[in-house]
């Protein structure tokens, strides 16, 4: 069994009782609704006959019980509706609050080569939207109970008229549900292909923007995209038309059922017929949510499949225990604390790709001349990446990524803070952070302070310096810094390497940091 199925099954099981209670409440709402209108109709008809007959008949007509029952049903329907909706949503929300972090954890543990190849938009769409669909599917589970409750109540109440009426009611309702299920199940994802084409069309066009501007080609490209938009519109409208079939079908089958009941019961007591017709009407209405959920079933299934793919990504293979080495074009370099290696090569020649492969962020065979015996292990390295990424979070959140959970547990908060400030000082970012109103707790990234390119670079450097891995990997660490700051940063780096005894791998087109290295690897 797949990891996803096992986990999702477990989550669902822990909320099963709540979901069942929600379904029972849903059935109760339908039963109350059916009974309420049926009883009201019967009461009216009975009252009309008794009132017309007058005298003793009227005295015998028990009006207290039905009128009290009507009020009780109205209140029961209200309370049950509340519990049905609350319990169903509570279970679904709490279940899904566990699913999202689990999926994220699977992603971080999965083989990075696969996990990172999932485009970002794709993975986040699965985590957010598809999981949201699963939530809808869980809530929709009570729709069956709602329809079933309506059916059972209608059938039982129809028995007051005659068994035949009950049978007609069953046949009518099951014809509706059956037809909707087997004949008119819409293919969801209608328009997905067209939407994909339109998207592709636009993204293919965007690189041509300068050409479009220079040669006034906008009209030509718009004319190319317009038919795709029209095709999408046609597909979606067609889909909507198909989704509308069950609602129309409900009314038609309901009409046939009602007429059949009347035609076979012209000689029956009128109040019972009134009861039967009204309960049948409401029972048909109770199938509404179920029919709507049926049109979405394929959507739910597709979402589950996509989420399952994410949960079932292959886990990273355990790493071998041999001494770590870098093998490039037959040259074997030991990856240890004595390493002081500079990687050189022409721009766009694959220097960054080489260190990404070392860290395990891309397959070894992605890099030409890199030997298969190379150790790819993130634990060996403390990385300062070229693109200087910053997490949305506080300055502290960003820096503490460089400290392992065990270290955080073993270090007193004061020592930890001192270490963080020391790293910031080495990276020449201390005055900037100290000047921030909330210091290390200042929010950076979306919704917070925006750091300049150079500041982001230095923050990344500080993060790498905090990490106690054997080898520091610096990819263009001083890019975007002015020469003064650069000189200070390089001296601080030298001091840091001497204190910690860490090894170094450096990529730098600037000359100042190069003196930190004694060896050179030229990539082709």
């Amino acid at each position, binding site marked *: 069994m797949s990891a996803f199925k096992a986990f999702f099954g477990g989550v669902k099981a822990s909320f099963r009782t709540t979901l069942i209670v929600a379904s029972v409440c849903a059935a109760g709402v339908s039963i109350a609704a059916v009974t309420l209108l049926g009883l009201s109709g019967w009461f009216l008809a009975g009252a009309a006959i008794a009132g017309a007959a007058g005298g003793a008949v009227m005295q015998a007509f028990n009006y207290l019980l039905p009128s009290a029952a*009507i009020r009780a049903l109205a209140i029961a329907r209200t309370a049950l509706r509340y519990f049905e909706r609350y319990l169903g949503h509570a279970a679904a929300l709490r279940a899904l609050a566990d699913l999202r972090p689990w999926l994220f954890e699977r992603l971080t543990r999965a083989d990075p080569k696969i996990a990172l190849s999932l485009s970002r938009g794709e993975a986040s769409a699965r985590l957010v939207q598809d999981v949201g669909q699963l939530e809808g599917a869980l809530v929709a589970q009570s729709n069956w109970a709602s329809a079933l409750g309506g059916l059972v109540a209608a059938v039982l109440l129809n028995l007051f008229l005659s068994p035949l009426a009950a049978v007609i009611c069953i046949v009518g309702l099951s014809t509706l549900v059956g037809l909707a299920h087997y004949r008119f199940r819409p293919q969801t994802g209608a328009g997905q292909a067209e939407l994909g084409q339109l998207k592709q069309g636009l993204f293919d066009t965007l690189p041509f923007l300068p050409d479009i501007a220079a*040669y006034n080609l906008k009209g030509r490209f718009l004319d190319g995209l317009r038919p795709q938009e029209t095709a999408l519109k046609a597909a979606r409208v067609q889909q909507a038309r198909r989704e509308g079939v069950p609602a129309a079908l409900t009314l038609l089958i309901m009409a046939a059922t009602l007429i059949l009941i009347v035609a076979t019961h012209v000689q029956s007591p009128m109040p019972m017929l009134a009861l039967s017709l009204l309960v049948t009407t409401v029972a048909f209405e109770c199938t509404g949510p179920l029919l709507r959920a049926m049109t979405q079933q394929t959507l739910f299934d597709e979402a589950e499949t996509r989420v399952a793919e994410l949960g079932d990504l292959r886990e990273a293979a355990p790493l071998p225990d041999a001494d770590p080495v870098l093998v490039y074009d037959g040259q074997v370099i030991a990856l240890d604390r004595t390493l002081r290696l500079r990687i050189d090569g022409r721009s766009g020649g694959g220097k960054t790709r080489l260190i990404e492969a070392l860290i395990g962020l891309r397959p070894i065979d992605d890099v030409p001349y890199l030997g298969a015996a190379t150790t790819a292990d993130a634990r060996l390295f403390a990385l300062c990446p070229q693109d200087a990424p910053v997490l949305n979070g506080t300055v502290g959140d960003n820096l503490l990524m460089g400290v392992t959970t065990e270290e955080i547990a073993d270090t007193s908060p004061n020592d930890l803070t001192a270490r963080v400030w020391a790293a910031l000082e080495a990276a020449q970012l201390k005055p900037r952070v100290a000047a921030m109103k909330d210091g290390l707790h200042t929010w950076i990234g979306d919704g917070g302070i925006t750091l300049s390119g150079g500041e982001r670079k230095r923050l990344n450097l500080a993060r790498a310096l905090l990490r106690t891995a054997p080898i520091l990997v610096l990819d263009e660490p001083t890019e975007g810094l002015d020469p003064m700051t650069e000189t200070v940063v390089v001296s601080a780096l030298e001091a840091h390497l001497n204190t910690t005894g860490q090894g170094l791998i450096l990529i730098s087109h600037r000359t100042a940091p190069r003196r930190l290295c004694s060896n050179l690897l030229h990539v082709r």
Partner: protein
Amino acid sequence: MSHPDPASNETATDAAKALRQAVGARLKLWAIPAKRQVKLVLCLEIAAVLCAAGFAVGLALTLNDVRSRAFPVWGLLLIATGLGLRAGISHISQFVTASAARTIIEALRLGLIDEALSGRGLSGSQMHRMTPFFEHSEALEGYYARFLPARRASSLTPLLVILIVAVVSPAAALILLFTLCPFVTLMALSGMATAAESRKQLDALTRLSALFADRLKHLPLITAFAQGESQTKKVRFAARDVSERTLSVLRMAFSGSAVLEFFAAISVALVAVYCGFSLLGLLPFAVPAALDFRYDPFVSAFIALTLAPEVYAPLRRLSAAYHEEQQARAATEALMQMEAALETPALTPVMLDGAPEVQFDAVSAAFDQDTIFAPVSFTTPAGSVTALLGESGSGKSTLLRLLLGTSPASGLRHDGRITIGEQVLTPTHDLSSSLAWMSQHTPILTGTLSDNLRLSHPKATDAEVAAVIDLCGLNDLATARGETPFNDRGSGLSGGERRRIGLARALLKPAPLLLLDEPTADLDEAAEDALIDALFSAVAGRTVIIATHSEKLAARAAQVVRL
């Protein structure tokens, strides 16, 4: 982890209110292309209510006939027509609302694409801004197809149903009206209370989405620092927080739907009890003659009872579509930002006569806060070739794009002074009529080779086309293809051929300024050499600026500028 407090003072509240109003106004504005459909849907809603009334009358007549042991021909006929017509109407209105929603989305999207293709608001590295564009615009479908029709219907049809009931039994109609009024007041009050709460929840949800997107984006970093576990902890914390917040909002929303259910049930119960006791003649008070049943008491009472649930039907539809409105509002906010960023200022065309001198005086560019390149100064003399060299990401392409025009709203701006000939360039200047552009992506459109070349200069004579074909070494291709059109993907063309077409196209336009963005990237050595030869044999008399990685190409330029 603490997020910056959303400023909780009054200005923030006012700003949020203004934003909500702006979003509402925008949603209304976008709906204009589907005006006719909207009216039609409203007519269909009214027709559906009339059908429901027909059904109710049919049911009452049927029972009345059965009471007197007659076969209810008319009653059954009314039931059949009422329900049959209603089925038809529901199908048609489903179709009309869907096509109205799609018409709106189509118009909105094509309008935005039109803006985007103007090119000013968007440049290569900022293209990712367009990624959520489709999700956001699709999110409007539920709003226009379901929420809006339900809202329009719920402000009209309940009263219409009550009016119909009033025809047969004014007293029952009064009962329905009296249950509807407190309901509407209660909903409005609780709606105001939940609105604030649900905005907070929406914020939390947005933050969770942003957290996911951010952590997924930085998965390489998280992997490199082996921080999977601690980041999962953060995500778990945020996810639980959101689910509990959502639940507290839903608790309120569900009490709203319970209230709805209560009034729907109570209106049926009150009508039934009133009619029943009235038929029995047991009412503890006298009903004024004006309010009493207008027709046969039983028939009138039954019609009132059957129509009572119809009063609340559109309100129920509305509450089911509630979250679609929220989604659409969030999407609209994002689309409005995009609209603003893509907005093109009114342009002043600039015509150049003769190859201009181009002067960059301490020009730097930034996108939002990020510097793209530091100040650079150089002068390209009229009619000479300047090569820009630099690492990828050093801003060569952006520098060329500055000459195509920028838009301040897009976030891309430049400092310093660019002078073309005598003119100082401002963001509203439009040089496009006087410049030709060639990049590593040459668009090929459906059409023959000469059609494709003429895209830059539709009035070019056959002789001029033949001349650039010869100049750029496209003779073999022209012979092989003849009049066979290319498709819009340019299938069957080699990379080298595509570039030659791009060069020929740029040269065909009699533009005095020629900008080339990495014209030889990804070409093999032979193709690169051939293209460089063709290029330098053809650019005489034009001012040329080339952004490139190629030292070979730079070596032949009159001037090399390093970024």
